[in-house]
């Protein structure tokens, strides 16, 4: 009997069934045996049965024995088979097979890899898709593979030509992703959802998921900080409110506001919901966007994974602040005296024509041998407890003539390490995952670090086929001391404010500082950081949920989940007295505080899902309740007898004591519904309606958040079938409303009074001391009419796959109109004090484009490239601020009361505002001419063009042409919002090696470089100055300068008002991450009983291309106050990102 067949990767049982049908033979076999037998590939045109059975025998462990019409199938003994096979192959005649490979539409497909199974022989198809390969024997099997297509195996048989049509691998499109209260196939998404490639994400070694997210998802802007544990600023599609713009995070179905302590290794998937079509199911909390995270679950057999890395951060090198050395600093002082027409000379630098550095700065200007420098006269008690003691100090400080490098005194190379172990497994009974992580990142700035321990236990128990019960729980403990400010008073700022002639220590090893004459008023940053050494804290948080799911009547699933977080933390800090500065604190103060919070979310959801022919319908409805409580408690005391950290607590101080506490409560109650309908895999429709009730609102407590979406998979239409380069094309659009209430405090609706020791107590009895009597002040002005902020969003997008899956494009255009924006504009002064209530007053508009492009290439036989580009742009425009004002200002900094940031109608949030410098006043004639013009135009004989106009100072632009520089001549000077930001990930694979490079860039934003206020102007306090101040400032001989004339006085025409001198281009391109990995060959691993082992070397922040003159164009702020959430891009010494070199390994067994 002869049989013809062409089966590829087919189960043996199916093959035997075919033979039975063609021949009438019967096979007798053990089901179990066949189930574990690998699939086979056979090609036969009219061959005898035994030959075919032999082919099967060769590819499997089966043996066939014919008894009459019955063929028995058994397992063959495990000996000698490999040798035998090789011998047969060796005897076979080598011949050539040719053919053409096409895609599913018949187009030639180049670069397809063709290998002979079981050998290392292989080739690739050429540009037309044709190929030729040598095989030995008819039973050789060829494997055809190409990224984006399903691999195929074909047995050669007697043929000399084999043409193959490849089928696209739609697996990524069929991938199911978790969205709001449900899951969808990726191809069915009709909302703007960024599906984050979690493997790529994890390549950035960081303790925080949000830092890793930078550049990985389109539509998401992340500004991160170099400080360990600083939560980065995450913005989804720009800015949506005048306050808190942080997105909502939903981890395993539980909403939360923070994922800072989430173990990054635990993440299984991450989706960003950006528009109403995807996010308005989260109703009142959706407007800032939603990030959905699912943590890992166990599956299959027991697996243990260990991964670890060790990294070393290296702070920027060189003279990072461009600071003058001591001799130059002294020269500048003399230059200033010359510019101001003063007599040259200084107590420290002498009264000659050129300054001479002293040997000592304390006593002032003393030379070696001066009797005042006798160490016997020295007296400093660094741990003094009485002012009288302090008043007798006599400090002796040598001059550091070579200059102290203050930056590198506080920024040191710092190690980071992470160890993660996880244990997982699963069966049809359930699944479990247990993980532990130890993360320790030392900050480059001394005494800043993040030490964190996290534990996770995710489990699910299947009770029968239809009931699932489980839990996801994470517990974290963090110890995270930080440098708290990023303004001119921080240690980082003092590293550019402190004069370099001051040494770190005095002659006896105590701190030296600005106490000496002419040394300015900066604080010793080393002392400052060192004095935080007793500051400790510990935060812990239990986060997770328990859930139950029941399948009912085939089509229904009922899920209930009770989750939330219970967190608490404590901290203590100690303020040492200081003695080395101009401005010393004479007290010692110990502070201790704690906070705790408990919030829960109880969600009940009933889902109906049914496919009926071409119709697929999903309906979900449910309820959700959220309850939140928060407490704070703390106090401080002064007057400690000993500064031993083991001694100090709130009870042991002898001085004045203070304490405080506070708490807040709020709740939400919601009804949820959503409908998704798909017809014929072609037309997709979605609808969402959520109703939220909030405890923060009184008169109108409930709000409705609807959204409708539609999608059309055009590529499924007949008229699209002839386009060979297009695999899949879907157009989608949606419209809906998202809400926001995050900025509103729980007491917003009520006018209330409180007593406040600081501002409502009064010493009516005239005791001078502790006898102040209790009084009351208004704490809150109430607005019972506040309602939800409405974010009305329209989104149009396309999802397309081109060139046989080699190119994926996801593009979205959106417009968001924010109405009833909740804002608490300052009230008119005549209304008096108290917290200003949030009222629905503002309006804003955002529009932009999100784009994500993925592409995959096989460059050579073993060299593969996978490139991902994300592109994010947003344009934010304020449409209304309040009824009586069209702007609000923020950030005064060192100016004369005018603010740097003006948020005004027609502009973006956070824009910089002030006078525009158009040059210097180069001659007296120029000033006189301008003043004469001012007199003429105003008719006022006293009129001047510009206050403080003088030689070498700034000339400002007069924009209204009234002949005078007035407040009306201020203009928008720059915008910290970038035109766009982008991330480009290039991943190469060559055999066991992998290399990935990740670039992140920001384009078209401006930075307000406030460090220049301190460094480039002599009159900005007497601190260290920059090389620009000495070498590139205006002098009568140097008009083409950068900085204005250096002088003692400050002026409206120099640094008293915000002006464009401080504006710089903040665009940059950064090599965020470069990683080279080596994965050991599976064959070797099998020997040592491991599944996977990979080593890697990594460099983070390897280089940055930017024109920005400051330390780091990624200017971060670690301030969590609401007002500052919309202030960004102001650099007054922000914590810079460091380069980091890392080695790591990942091991699974």
């Amino acid at each position, binding site marked *: 009997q002869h049989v013809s067949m062409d089966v590829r990767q087919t189960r043996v049982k199916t093959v035997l069934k075919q033979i039975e049908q063609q021949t009438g033979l019967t096979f007798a076999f053990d089901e179990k045996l066949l189930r574990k037998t690998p699939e086979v590939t056979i090609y036969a045109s009219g061959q005898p049965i035994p030959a075919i059975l032999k082919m099967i025998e060769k590819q499997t462990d089966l043996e066939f024995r014919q008894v009459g019409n019955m063929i028995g199938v058994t397992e063959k003994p495990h000996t000698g088979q490999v040798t035998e096979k090789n011998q047969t192959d060796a005897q076979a005649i080598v011949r050539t097979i040719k053919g053409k490979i096409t895609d599913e539409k018949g187009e030639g497909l180049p670069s397809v890899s063709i290998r002979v199974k079981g050998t290392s022989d292989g080739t690739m198809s050429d540009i037309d898709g044709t190929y030729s390969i040598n095989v030995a024997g008819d039973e050789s099997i060829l494997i055809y593979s190409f990224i984006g297509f399903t691999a195929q195996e074909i047995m050669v048989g007697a043929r000399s030509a084999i043409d193959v049509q490849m089928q696209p691998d739609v697996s990524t499109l069929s991938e199911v992703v978790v969205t709001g209260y449900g899951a969808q196939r990726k191809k069915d998404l009709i909302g703007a959802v960024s599906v984050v490639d979690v493997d790529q994400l994890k390549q950035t070694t960081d303790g925080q998921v949000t830092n890793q997210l930078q550049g990985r998802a389109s539509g998401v802007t992340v500004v991160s900080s170099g400080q360990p544990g600083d939560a980065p600023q995450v913005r989804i599609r720009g800015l949506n409110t005048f306050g808190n713009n942080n997105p909502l995070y939903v981890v395993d179905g539980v909403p939360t506001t923070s994922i800072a302590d989430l173990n990054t290794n635990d993440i299984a998937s991450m989706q960003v919901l950006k528009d109403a079509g995807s996010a308005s199911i989260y109703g009142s909390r959706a407007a800032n966007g939603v990030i959905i995270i699912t943590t890992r679950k166990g599956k299959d057999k027991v697996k243990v994974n260990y991964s670890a890395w060790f990294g070393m951060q290296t702070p920027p090198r060189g003279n990072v602040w461009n600071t003058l050395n001591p001799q130059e600093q002294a020269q500048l002082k003399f230059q200033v005296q010359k510019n101001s027409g003063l007599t040259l000379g200084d107590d420290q630098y002498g009264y000659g024509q050129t300054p001479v550095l002293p040997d000592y700065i304390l006593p002032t200007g003393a030379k070696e041998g001066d009797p005042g420098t006798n160490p016997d006269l020295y007296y400093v008690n660094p741990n003094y407890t009485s002012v009288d003691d302090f008043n007798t100090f006599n400090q002796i400080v040598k001059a550091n003539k070579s200059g102290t490098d203050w930056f590198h005194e506080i920024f040191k190379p710092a190690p980071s390490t992470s160890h993660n172990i996880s244990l997982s497994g699963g069966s049809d009974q359930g699944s479990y995952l247990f993980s532990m992580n130890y993360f320790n990142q030392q900050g480059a700035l001394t005494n800043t670090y993040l030490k964190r321990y996290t534990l996770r236990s995710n489990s699910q128990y299947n009770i029968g086929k239809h009931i699932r019960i489980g839990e996801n729980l994470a517990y974290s403990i963090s110890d995270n001391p930080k440098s708290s400010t990023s303004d001119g008073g921080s240690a980082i700022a003092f590293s550019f404010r402190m004069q370099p002639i001051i040494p770190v220590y005095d002659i006896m090893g105590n701190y030296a500082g600005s106490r000496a004459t002419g040394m300015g008023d900066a604080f010793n940053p080393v002392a400052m950081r060192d004095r935080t050494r007793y500051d400790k804290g510990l935060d812990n948080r239990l986060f997770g949920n328990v859930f139950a799911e029941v399948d009912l009547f085939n089509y229904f699933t009922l899920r209930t989940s009770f989750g939330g977080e219970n967190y608490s933390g404590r901290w203590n800090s100690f303020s040492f007295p200081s003695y080395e500065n101009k401005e010393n604190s004479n007290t010692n103060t110990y502070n201790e505080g704690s906070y705790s919070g408990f919030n829960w979310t109880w969600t009940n959801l009933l889902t109906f899902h049914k496919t009926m022919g071409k119709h697929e319908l999903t309906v979900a409805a449910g309820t959700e309740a959220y309850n939140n409580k928060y407490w704070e408690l703390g106090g401080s005391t002064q007057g400690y007898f000993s500064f031993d950290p083991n001694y100090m607590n709130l009870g042991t101080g002898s001085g004045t004591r203070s304490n405080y506490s506070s708490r807040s409560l709020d709740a939400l109650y919601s009804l949820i519904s959503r409908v998704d309908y798909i017809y014929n895999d072609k037309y997709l429709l979605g609808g969402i309606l959520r109703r939220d009730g909030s405890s923060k609102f009184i008169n109108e407590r409930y709000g409705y958040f609807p959204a409708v979406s539609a999608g059309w998979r055009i590529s499924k239409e007949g008229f699209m079938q002839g386009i060979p380069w297009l695999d899949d094309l879907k157009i989608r659009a949606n419209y809906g409303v998202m809400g926001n209430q995050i900025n509103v405090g729980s007491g917003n609706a009520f006018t209330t*009074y409180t007593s*406040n020791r600081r501002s409502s107590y009064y010493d009516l009895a005239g005791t001078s001391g502790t006898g102040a009597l209790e009084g009351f002040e*208004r704490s809150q002005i109430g607005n019972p009419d506040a309602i939800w902020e409405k974010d009305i969003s329209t989104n149009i997008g396309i999802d397309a796959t081109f060139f046989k899956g080699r190119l994926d494009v996801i593009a979205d255009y959106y417009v968001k109109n924010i109405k009833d924006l909740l804002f608490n504009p300052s009230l008119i002064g005549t209304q008096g*004090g108290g917290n200003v209530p949030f009222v629905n007053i503002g309006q804003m508009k955002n529009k932009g484009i999100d784009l994500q492009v993925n592409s995959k290439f096989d460059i050579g036989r073993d060299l593969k490239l996978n490139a991902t580009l994300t592109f994010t742009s947003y344009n934010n425009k304020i449409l209304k601020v309040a009824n009586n004002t069209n702007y609000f200002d923020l950030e005064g900094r060192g100016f004369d009361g005018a603010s740097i940031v003006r948020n005004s109608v027609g502009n973006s949030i956070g824009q910089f505002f002030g006078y525009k410098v158009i040059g210097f006043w180069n001659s007296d004639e120029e000033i006189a001419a301008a003043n004469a013009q001012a007199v003429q135009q105003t008719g006022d004989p006293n009129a001047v063009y510009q206050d403080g106009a003088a030689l070498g100072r700034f000339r400002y632009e007069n924009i209204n042409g009234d002949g005078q520089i007035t407040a009306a001549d201020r203009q928008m000077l720059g915008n910290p919002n970038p035109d766009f930001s982008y991330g480009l990930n290039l991943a190469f694979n060559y055999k066991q090696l992998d290399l990935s490079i990740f670039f992140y860039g920001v384009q078209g934003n401006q930075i307000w470089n406030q460090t220049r206020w301190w460094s480039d102007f002599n009159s900005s306090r007497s601190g260290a100055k920059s090389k620009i101040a000495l070498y590139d400032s205006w002098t009568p001989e140097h008009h083409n300068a950068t900085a204005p004339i250096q002088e003692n006085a400050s002026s409206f025409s120099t640094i008293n008002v915000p002006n464009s001198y401080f504006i710089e281009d903040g665009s940059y391109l950064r090599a965020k991450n470069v990683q080279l990995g080596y994965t050991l060959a599976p064959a070797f691993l099998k020997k040592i009983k491991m599944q996977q082992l990979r080593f890697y070397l990594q460099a983070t922040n390897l280089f940055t291309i930017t024109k920005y003159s400051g330390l780091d164009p990624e200017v971060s702020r670690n301030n969590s106050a609401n007002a500052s959430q919309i202030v960004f891009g102001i650099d007054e010494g922000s914590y810079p990102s460091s380069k980091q070199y890392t080695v790591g390994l990942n091991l699974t067994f």
Partner: protein
Amino acid sequence: SLLFLQSCKDQFLDKPVQGALSDEVLATKKGVDGLLTGAYAALDGQGDFTGGSGWESPPDNWVYGAIPGGDAHKGSDGGDQTPINAIATFTSGADNGFYNTKWKALYEGVTRSNTVLRVLALVTDMTDEEKSALEAQARFLRGHYYFELKKMWNMVPWIDETTTDFNQPNDKDIWPMIEADFQMAYEKLPATQDLVGRANKWAAGAYLGKTYLYEKKFAEAVKVFTEVIGSGVTSNGLKYELVSFKDNFDAATKNNAESVFAIQMVANDGTLDITNANQGSMLNFPYGTGAPFACCGFFQPSQMLVNMYRTDASGLPYLTDYNSHAVKNDMKLTSAAPFTPDAGNLDPRLDWTVGRRGIPYHDWGIYPGMNWVRDQPYGGPYAPKKNIHRQKTQDLYADLSSWAPGNAINVLVIRFADVLLMAAEAEANAGSLAKAEEYVNRVRNRAADKAGWLYQYVTNANPLAGFSTTPAANYVIKPYPTGTLAAKGKAGVLQAIYYERGIELAMEGHRFFDLVRWNAADTAINGYFNYESKVTTDLAGGKFLNGKNNYFPIPQYQIDMSTANGAPLLKQNPGYN
């Protein structure tokens, strides 16, 4: 479970406000008294409600009354607190943030006073007399807050306890309302109070007189001042009298017989903060190498002020040409360089008002000059003194819990010497020149009392060891010989009164407002710029423009906020754009 949640969801969403009280809870005798205490607590202008730093709304007006009047330089160095420099040189526009802070601080006081009056109407457990006495205190306070607003800005909106729309125009002269508040307080307040910090009848009388004086209603002023001087007592029952000059500026001797109305300050009140401890003056301590204060070298007396303390051989001031008899200073001298203080005749009040080289600085040691000055070419060689606490009692009266010092020295809104000089002014204008002379001499006689002078240390090495019997300088001061002043006629008497106010009340925040109401600001201040600019560099470009700079500009932000129907209700003062 769904049903359960549905049924109790309304309760579920009702969350009571935490840590706060409602109107109704406070509408009791005790509650409204607490609100009144809160209205007093706004006197110091310090709290979150101002939106600015403490020194932007100082209750002693060192920024707005003393510095613009020529008493003192801003001090510190050029880049520090530049808005004050703009105020000092009258180059400041309406957008200077300091004005807004001061405005808000004062209207917070108005608001708190109004809240007392509004809630008082709801109280049921008080008699009408009790209510009226309490109302009188609230109206006294409101009168004070409006008086401050009036002298700063002239035209300001009037808000009272009945106002519901807080956007009101500044189109009315509010003197009549201020007068009415003080009049009511003068009539209804008791002569003495249970607590010394409360305003009494006589404080209200003095303030009413001051109001008349500003309104140039001199006859009414004479009447009320005569009553106050004749019968006035302090809230703790002390007959109004002049005490030792220095005791006015010492926390240990506060609320003495001279204290007509004072803002009570406390140190170490359990807040670990100096909000109630003269926070408005936290910057005004000598600063530099070895200076025993943490901050900050501001408020440095001017050379012109120091010159005003020069006396002639007969112990009388040089009323017009004091600058030709300048007091020797230590400009350009380091602390190590030798210096001998001026040996000429001086008014002893100088050395309780100004810290100068070679003279004991309270019990902190001999004032060393440059070492305690931040930038001498910029701010001059001197330091303030009236606001400085003593070393000996600093444990009690200094509050060192913040980055800058605080202390418990009261801010004197009106002290009896001020009353006497105001009365003298009223008398000179509408009464008896002899009476005016008598009042001036009463003030000078107190200054001439040797017991109140500053003496040299027993030993300079240990200032805490006390003072010797050798005066710290060559003090020569005498009253005007009887009849000689009155003989100069009204103009001559007024000139002497104006001068006497200048040296008696220097550094207490009155000078600028006095000069403006005398219509003397133009000459005095531009003369000051002329003279003082030769001493220091900070006043370059300073120019007082009469008709414009008599009042400060209404804060631009408030004007912007007052926009209704496209136009602001608040009108800017003349001369500002």
